[in-house]
């Protein structure tokens, strides 16, 4: 099995001319961050249009948290640059933080505070705070304001963290693994609340996740991060539509050469009789001997992460 890295520039341009071009909410250009000798993130380039709900997908340790921390100014880049709403996060932190919400991994909250006290804290710390956004949301979810945060379930704590972030009325909301620790039901509830907020407040969202389930229905932009690099970035539907699984009689390297000239092979596997590929089509497929199958977000993501999809075992 080979693993090909796709140049992302072409793809970003193809995405940009979609509908009327909205300004970009997040732009990264050659962005890199180094811890000692190790690059946690390198040559990261993408432009995420405003109004998108983007998924930042990749295995643990791929650099997702590093990228998010660079976006809110918690880290300073060692290479390249990132801008959020036109601001450089590390240099213009104050101006940016008034417009950006960030929920760190495991949604850290003061466990001894009641929910009401937590909201008071948020009100005192944020200039554009709107209490009713948080209180109405929490009332709808039947989360009591007089309860201590530490006594709430994991799902409820996540909802409190989200309500806090939404009440500051951010234009961009960044979430680091918001659903990783939640059970499937709480995960769906959390994403539902997030999507309702997108309807009401019309913000740009970037959420990282190593769980691909549920992202397809929630996100319309995708960034795949693996081995500290961006493997793929662009409009979710267009990316899924341009990737296909091709199954056909066994080919060797030389007979695959014509295919490679136009298309990009992301993943290939061979048996003595059969060849199966996951390709990114860059034009019409001329060879009719391939059986062409649609792929799911999971198939595509796993191919870029270089792992065989789990579902494959059952087929």
């Amino acid at each position, binding site marked *: 099995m080979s693993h090909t890295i796709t140049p992302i520039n072409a793809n970003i341009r193809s995405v940009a001319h979609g509908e009327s071009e909205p300004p970009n909410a997040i732009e990264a250009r050659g962005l890199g961050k180094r811890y000692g000798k190790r690059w946690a993130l390198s040559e990261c380039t993408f432009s995420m249009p405003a*109004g998108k709900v983007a998924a930042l997908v990749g295995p643990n340790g791929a650099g997702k948290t590093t990228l998010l921390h660079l976006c809110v100014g918690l880290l300073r880049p060692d290479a390249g640059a990132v801008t959020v709403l036109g601001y450089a996060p590390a240099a213009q932190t104050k101006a940016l933080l008034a417009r950006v919400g960030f929920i760190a991994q495991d949604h850290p909250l003061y466990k001894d505070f009641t929910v009401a006290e937590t909201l008071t804290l948020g009100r005192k710390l944020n200039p554009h705070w709107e209490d009713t956004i948080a209180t109405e949301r929490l009332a709808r979810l039947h989360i009591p304001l007089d309860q201590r945060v530490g006594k709430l379930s994991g799902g409820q704590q996540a909802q409190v963290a989200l309500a806090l972030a939404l009440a500051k009325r951010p234009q961009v909301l960044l979430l680091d693994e918001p659903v990783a620790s939640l059970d499937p039901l709480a995960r769906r509830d959390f994403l539902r609340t997030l*999507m309702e907020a*997108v*309807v009401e407040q019309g913000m740009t969202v970037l959420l990282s996740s190593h769980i691909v389930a549920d992202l397809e*229905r929630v996100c*319309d932009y995708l960034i795949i991060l693996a081995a500290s690099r961006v493997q793929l970035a662009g409009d979710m539907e267009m990316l899924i539509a341009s990737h296909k699984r091709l199954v056909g009689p066994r080919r060797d390297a030389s007979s695959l050469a014509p295919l490679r000239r136009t298309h990009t092979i992301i993943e290939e596997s061979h048996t003595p009789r059969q060849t199966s590929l996951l390709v990114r089509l860059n034009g019409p497929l001329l060879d009719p001997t391939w059986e062409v199958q*649609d792929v799911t977000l999971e198939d595509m993501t796993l191919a870029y992460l270089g792992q065989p999809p789990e579902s494959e075992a059952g087929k």
Partner: protein
Amino acid sequence: MIDFHLDTHTGAPPYVQIAQQVRQALRLGMLRVGDQLPTVREVVEKLAINPNTVLKAYRELEHEGVVASRPGQGTFVLRSLAGEGLASHAMLRRSLTQWLRSAYDAGLDEESVLALFQTTFHQAPREQRTGEEDTA
């Protein structure tokens, strides 16, 4: 009012599935002219999906002239699809039943029949699918 559901295991994008379900409801008469489609908010609440997906589906239906959106009010059905091709259903079903019988006579099992249908369906370009009639 109709309810949408999403099948995330097919390759069909969510917006395509929603548009299909509206058309299907129209064909089956579950939606009629003048009916209101669920609001974006209602669909988002029900399915926990991206609101842009719902908007995209509704925009596609609007392009097709099936629905119209009235600002501040919602999206309403403009024309019905019921009856479209309904008359030929019985005949098509008969010839499909015949085809199935000959497939089973030829020794194909259910899985092979489905595989054959699916590969033929996917391989025949849409232009070819309309037009010529296959009498096999």
